[in-house]
């Protein structure tokens, strides 16, 4: 075949496995092919198709930032056939990667604005990419705020990494847990929406990037709309069943949009027009 075969995965080696919380690990992957390793670029919010040969493929959002090339990091929850098989692998084992796919966050459009990142639970996985992208290009953005809520301290992804950002002067890092029965949590306690009282939002210069479980969207959207943030300045990263990642297999189609091509980042205005979206 003359042209590139869009269905061939590229081999990548597992170079790092960092356990996060129960059934969640961060896998660092490095392409075997040198030109792939050097040239693989992506936008925050994009995803890849992860192949475990003989088992299958699954879409996984990228948790690393393109500002730190060489290794692609995927935060993977052990939840299905493919992710189970991944958990059986060890350092130096090979996996397949296709991508990057999806629209990703419109980072150029976000530049020069305030950014409010709101994550709930596992929603931090794709937002971590955007977080490090903004921190590594800090001069291109105005105020950057992260609000991240987990149920309990033991369920917070990238906990130590994020705790180390609490003192950073150029980031308002607001971490919260719903409950802290052991009394070990050094930061805020309460659901993520309780953080909104502590901040001011200038709707004319702010974009919000939201990712979390379906129940979280409703409450966070309510807070954002109450503060007059425009519907197309609210960006959400959404999950759908995907097989191909390239707009062929049909699984992720919602109304007239394909999550894999037109998403996974949608504005709240998109969501209003696509009743099934959230």
């Amino acid at each position, binding site marked *: 075949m003359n042209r590139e075969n869009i269905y061939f995965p590229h081999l990548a080696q597992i170079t790092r496995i960092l356990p996060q919380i129960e059934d969640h690990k961060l896998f660092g992957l490095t392409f075997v092919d040198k030109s792939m390793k050097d040239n693989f670029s992506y936008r925050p919010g994009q995803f890849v198709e992860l192949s475990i040969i*003989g*088992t299958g493929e699954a879409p996984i959002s990228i948790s690393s930032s393109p500002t730190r090339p060489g290794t692609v990091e995927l935060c993977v929850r052990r939840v299905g*056939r493919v992710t*189970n*098989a991944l958990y*059986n692998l060890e350092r130096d084992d090979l996996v397949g990667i296709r991508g990057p796919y999806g629209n990703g966050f419109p980072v150029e459009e976000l530049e020069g604005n305030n950014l409010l990142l709101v994550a709930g639970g596992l929603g931090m996985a794709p937002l971590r990419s955007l977080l490090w992208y903004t921190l590594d290009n800090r001069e291109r953005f105005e105020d950057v705020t992260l609000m991240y809520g987990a149920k309990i301290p033991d369920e917070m992804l990238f906990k130590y990494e994020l705790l180390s950002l609490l003192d950073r002067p150029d980031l308002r890092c607001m971490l919260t847990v719903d409950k802290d029965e052991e009394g070990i949590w050094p930061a805020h306690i309460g659901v993520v929406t309780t953080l909104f009282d502590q901040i001011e939002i200038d709707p004319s210069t702010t974009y919000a990037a939201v990712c979390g479980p379906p129940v979280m969207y409703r409450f966070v959207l309510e807070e954002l709309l109450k503060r007059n943030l425009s519907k197309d300045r609210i960006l959400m990263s959404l999950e759908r069943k995907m097989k191909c990642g390239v707009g062929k297999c049909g699984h992720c189609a919602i109304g007239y949009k394909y999550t894999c091509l037109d998403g996974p980042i949608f504005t709240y205005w998109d969501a209003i027009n696509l009743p099934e979206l959230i």
Partner: protein
Amino acid sequence: MAKPIVGIFGLTGCAGDQLVILNCEDELLDLAGALDIRSFHMAMSDNDEDCDLDIALVEGSVVQPEEVEMLERIRSRARLLIAIGTCAVWGGVQAMKNEEQREKLKRQVYGPKGKDFGIIPSQPLSSFVRVDYAISGCPIEKDQFLQAALSLIHGDLPVLPDYAVCTECKMRENSCLLLERGELCLGPITVAGCNARCPAYGQPCIGCRGPVEEANVASEVNLLREKGFTLVDIQNRLRTFGGQSEVMQVAPTERGR
């Protein structure tokens, strides 16, 4: 990875599913090499009756109190228990007369000798123990069994069809026996995996693989009635292989008509 330790067992059934495994002639050596088969009464002697098992494959339905014990014992030994064949998955043909009195049936079939053993209504394995996976079919399909076994060797759970026989029937471009010939075909509500073998030979699907996930039996019954079949005809066909499964009971609104 160490070879999975496997036991293959038969309860009440025709042993056809175990026979399918033995009939994998060209593949059996590879398979036997990749699995550590410790128990397979139908095929070998010196069976290990006590070892822990990674995978237990169990054929047949439960029709005797002794079989409940046998099954519970297998369950306690196995990490994964896989029901193979329609009897093990749905109760099988022997569940057809489940609503009739066991004692009466026993007298009819065994006469005075029937006093020597107990029987209970035919039930699938899942009525008694947790079943991790179900490979249905009467008998199971060889290719499906092999792929399932290979998946397990590879360390994955098998992927089985979640769609109806109609899908495979259309893929083969068989003439529709339901629409073109008005036959009592259960293709729309029977789980695929057989590659629509019977319709390809001009025979309607009799549902031997059991119901598909979320089978719309009420709609199937309605359309068959519109084609002129009586409720008795339809019920008999539904219950031949799916007797014990709730979905195969004719929808409540249809009962008694």
